[in-house]
């Protein structure tokens, strides 16, 4: 931050980071095992010093989590925070030969990526060229092949498998009626539209459009539009008008 971007405030030099456990590490087979996977990943995050953490719910390979599953995810964090003691120390693994080596390795490989992205003209250009997308897809494909060819083990998926139709039946999935949700949401939007100050709403969207066209920071204008009860759809509509819509570069 200091050398590259010339940051001066000490606050800007802080490395504060949020960790979310990996959605792609959740499996629908023997779904309860996801609780264990998430706990291990969350512990790793805390050992690594994250300041903010999101733990996934075990039923997320099926759908949006139920309250039951979300609560287990929250309690997982609370067990790590209040029962294990790992949060009492700044860096519990400091000095571990292996972890230090791994950190160096990660750093070196991260630098390789940063240099590659810079050579493509920065992240925006790289995304336009589809570089990071291709890297992610490549990794996902490689991973899938490794699992299918048995070169990588996933408990319950390619080792220690069980016929688990009954087990899946016992997962208390969040029930919702799509049509009912849609009807309710439309009703809410209709209500908001009928009670808001029309002139103020129109002005807020016009000002947002102006800011977007000028290339200004649109955040204050977005906030203003939200306060004037513009819907997300309306705000997005204005921005789409000005900026256009992102189209994924095709690779297949």
């Amino acid at each position: 931050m200091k050398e590259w971007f010339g940051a001066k405030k000490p606050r800007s030099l802080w490395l504060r980071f949020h960790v979310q456990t990996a959605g792609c590490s959740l499996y629908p087979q023997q779904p309860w095992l996801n609780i264990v996977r998430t706990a291990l990943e969350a512990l790793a995050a805390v050992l690594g010093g994250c300041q903010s953490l999101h733990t996934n719910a075990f039923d997320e390979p099926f759908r949006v989590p139920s309250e039951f599953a979300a609560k287990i995810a929250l309690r997982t964090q609370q067990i790590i925070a209040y029962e294990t003691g790992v949060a009492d120390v700044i860096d519990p693994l400091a000095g571990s030969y292996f972890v230090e080596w791994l950190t160096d390795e990660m750093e070196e490989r991260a630098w390789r990526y940063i240099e590659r992205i810079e050579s493509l003209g920065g992240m925006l250009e790289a995304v336009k060229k589809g570089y990071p997308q291709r890297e992610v897809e490549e990794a996902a494909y490689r991973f899938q092949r490794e699992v299918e060819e048995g070169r990588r083990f996933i408990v319950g998926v390619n080792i220690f498998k069980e016929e688990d139709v009954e087990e899946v039946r016992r997962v208390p999935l969040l029930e919702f009626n799509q049509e009912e949700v849609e009807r309710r949401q439309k009703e809410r939007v209709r209500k908001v539209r009928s009670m808001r100050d029309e002139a103020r709403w129109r002005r807020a969207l016009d000002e947002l459009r102006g800011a977007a066209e000028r290339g200004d920071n649109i955040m204050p204008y977005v906030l203003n539009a939200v306060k004037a009860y513009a819907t997300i759809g309306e705000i997005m509509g204005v921005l789409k008008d000005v900026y256009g819509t992102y189209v994924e570069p095709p690779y297949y």
Partner: protein
Amino acid sequence: MSMELTLSRPTTRRKVKVLVAKIGLDGHDRGAKVIARALRDAGFEVVYTGLRQTVDQVVAAAIQEDVDIIGVNQHEGSHVYIARKLLEKLREYGADDIPVVMGGSIPVVDLDVLKNIGVREVFLPGTPINEIVDKLLRIAEERRSRREV
């Protein structure tokens, strides 16, 4: 008649063309992209719709691209709802001869529901890619031979 039939058969067959579709607000595209990539490697022609398409857009793309199969990937739990809407739209446009297959985070308990609606094949999590490739080839082959008769 039989001679005509022979003549109408091209010597090199057109690649099987699959539309891989993401419908609705579900942004989980890892699986769809792994499948698209695997099908391409297996010699299919793949059209990927990109994220957040509507049912109408998918039907239009399927007709325009003259695909053999529509593959829908869902990960947020609305697979039954989406399947119903999609099959309805296909019927409306007289394109319901295009088989629809689904995959993604579909609980095994919804398998029969989807098949009863008219989804041709459902690939549950854990289905090996090779099995998907084989089944899609068979489905496309069946449809093409039906069209030629």
